[in-house]
């Protein structure tokens, strides 16, 4: 069974791009539109990786990471944060919340796969 990845982003175009890229690399993909939806979708999926945007309605990415880490199921699951700028402060915030790493937007499909392969 191929590893399953959850991608969380409020922009459907962005989600589509990520899903398309990951699927073409033989990953299973689950999508969620924001943090709240992600917390509903995630449990029981045996996720290998979660990729989340930061700025989202209802629940932002940083809060999502904190909430996920508090759940025993996701204590050690790799989580990548999509930061909008190469801003060091957002990387730090993600790290403090418990994120494994980050992908700096904008990124190419190749870069996405490169980072994914680094943490899985």
């Amino acid at each position, binding site marked *: 069974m191929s590893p399953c990845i959850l991608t969380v982003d409020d922009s459907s175009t962005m989600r589509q791009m990520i899903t398309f890229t990951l699927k073409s690399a033989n990953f299973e993909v689950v999508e969620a539109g924001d943090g709240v939806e992600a917390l509903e979708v995630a449990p029981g999926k045996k996720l290998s990786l979660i990729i989340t945007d930061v700025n989202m309605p209802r629940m932002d990415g940083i809060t999502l990471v904190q909430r996920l880490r508090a759940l025993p199921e996701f204590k050690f699951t790799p989580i990548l944060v999509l930061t909008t700028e190469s801003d060091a402060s957002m990387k730090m915030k993600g790290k403090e919340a*418990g994120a494994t790493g980050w992908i700096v937007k904008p*990124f190419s499909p190749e870069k996405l796969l490169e980072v994914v392969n680094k*943490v899985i």
Partner: protein
Amino acid sequence: MSDPMAQFRTAFFEEATELADSMEATLLSLDLQAVEVEDLHTLFRAAHSIKGNAGTFGFPAIASFTHQLESTLEPVRQGQRAMTSDLRELILQGVDLIRSHLHHARHDEPLPEKEQQAQTLLVVKLKEGKDAPAAAPAPAAVEVKAPPAGSSSAHRAGTGFSIRFEAPQDAFRRGVNLERLFRDLAKLGTMRSWPDLSHLPVLDRLDPEDCHLAWDIRLETAHPMMDVEEVFEFVAEGDNLRIQSLPAEGAVPPLGDYLQVEANVSPADIREALAKQKPLGEILVDMGKVKPEAVGKALEQQAKKRTQSEASTVRVATEKIDRLVNLVGELVITQAMLAQASLQSNSMQGEEQMNAALLQLDRQTRELQERVMGIRMVPVDMVFSRFPRMVHELGRQLGKDVELTMEGQATELDKTFIEMLVDPLTHLVRNSVDHGMEEKESRLQSGKPTIGTIALRASSRGGHIYIEIKDDGRGLNRDKILQKALDRGILPPGSHPSDEELHLLIFEPGFSTVEQVSDLSGRGVGMDVVRQNVRALGGRIEVESQMGKGTTIRLVLPLTLAILDGLTVRVADETYVFPLASVLESFQCNDADVQTVKGDREVISLRGEFIPVVRLQRLLALGSCQNTGRALLVLVESEGRRAAMAVDELLGQQQVVIKSLETHYKRVEGISGATILGDGRVALILDVSGLMRLEAGAATVEA
């Protein structure tokens, strides 16, 4: 927004432009003598970011070109390639090309043909320097300790890295896959690692979710440091990751390195062992042989000496050193010839041999002297290289089209000169653009091409270095300068100075014919500082100017500070040397021409100007003067003041090697140094301004 890429593109252009600006600013602020590694990292990162983003947004041309800059900068930031002024110039050109790329990409246009060609040429040049680090187009400047040319091939970035990595304590809780990290690292080359478990707490205090692991890693790889850093991207925080290049090929690694590879001793153990080694001072204190304070003092002295020797390093082209070594070889042969000849000195043949050998020795010592001096010499391009951009920028700000041409950049100057000439030359060039050049309209009206030309020229002739700044601007305004000089009281009323004298007035302190002080010139150093610096180097300034045609300012400098063009004179029984640069003329006069004013001060009237007369014999305490009825006067000038120095005889003009009095004896007012004459006697070199001060002081005391 329907296309997220379009939105990102705008952001990309803005960011890339900012990055290019920061690259330029960093480059321009680099001190090539002491490059900050952090600046090199900044440059590299900027190029890296532009490349990465350009790739994402479908600008492969920008990405691939920036990649060239990035891979040029990689060995530079690792200390494997020197940041020379040539390289800086090339990268600046690269930055301009990036900007141009961005501009055209924004408007969906391809890069114009002309710039395509410039880019191709630039890429070739960047690679040239890379393949032959010791044979750059300009005189090859390599560190003396650098490995010989050719030993390091182009893409070889050392032999690898020694890495110390302490995993962050929250690594597990952040889902970091350390196993994966090591697998990625091993993909880069041959890896050997030693886990360091010394940070593990005792079992009952151990939180299994905390990570207390550290590793020492030795990675042999041809990959650049960047690739290694990338592996650690998510776990590097501050100082928990240290990557060092393994000693380059040719260098002998320390014993610990061999022990790591041969006996699998871990770097942590080696560090521990090294820590047990006690410093010499501590051992001596323990032995009761010396007091701790004495050790502290000695350490201070050592540190001082160390910084001194670091501050005064000169980079010397290896070819210069090779030539010196050859020359010493020749000297040894000559010495053998002389020894041989002295054995048969009575024979005719022996004498001939002796003469031939002496002639050879003469030639060789002269060459040796020149070449040893040459070690201190660096190409004038180190100053010149900053001007094209400066002129360009200035012209743009002022709305003037100015073209800068340069000649003789390879002319070599004493290193000290280069440092002292930066400010004066910058000021002169700025002045030329700012004041010398007319506005476009007035150039058109006077029938000149709208594009003004400034020519920077360096050359060396007859023991002097000439640096010329020539512009085809409006020229100096004779009447205006004269009027100003009269207004300011710099010239006495009714004077009729020659063009030459008049032009030199622009170097007087507080003299400026431009009413409004512009933002560009008129700040910082003034023209008087230019003259001061040039004089301090034993040089002089010449000005040629024609109204409406342009101005040429010429700096005439001695070849080196260690040798001086001197006028030797006799005062009583002693020989003294005047620096020729401060001598204006010498003449004989009758005592009757010398007038006494204020009781004991003597002056002489020379072409309507009263000049103080200094009796060197009295001032230098060589006994009282005998009155011969006639006096021989040497007219000297320094710091804008003139004096006539009375001497007994003019002996001649010669080059003398300056020996510092301070190092050998102590500082003496009025004397700037000493030299050894051909007959072995010591002659003192006179400090003209010091003598004038001395004379003025003496007069005040007596008054």
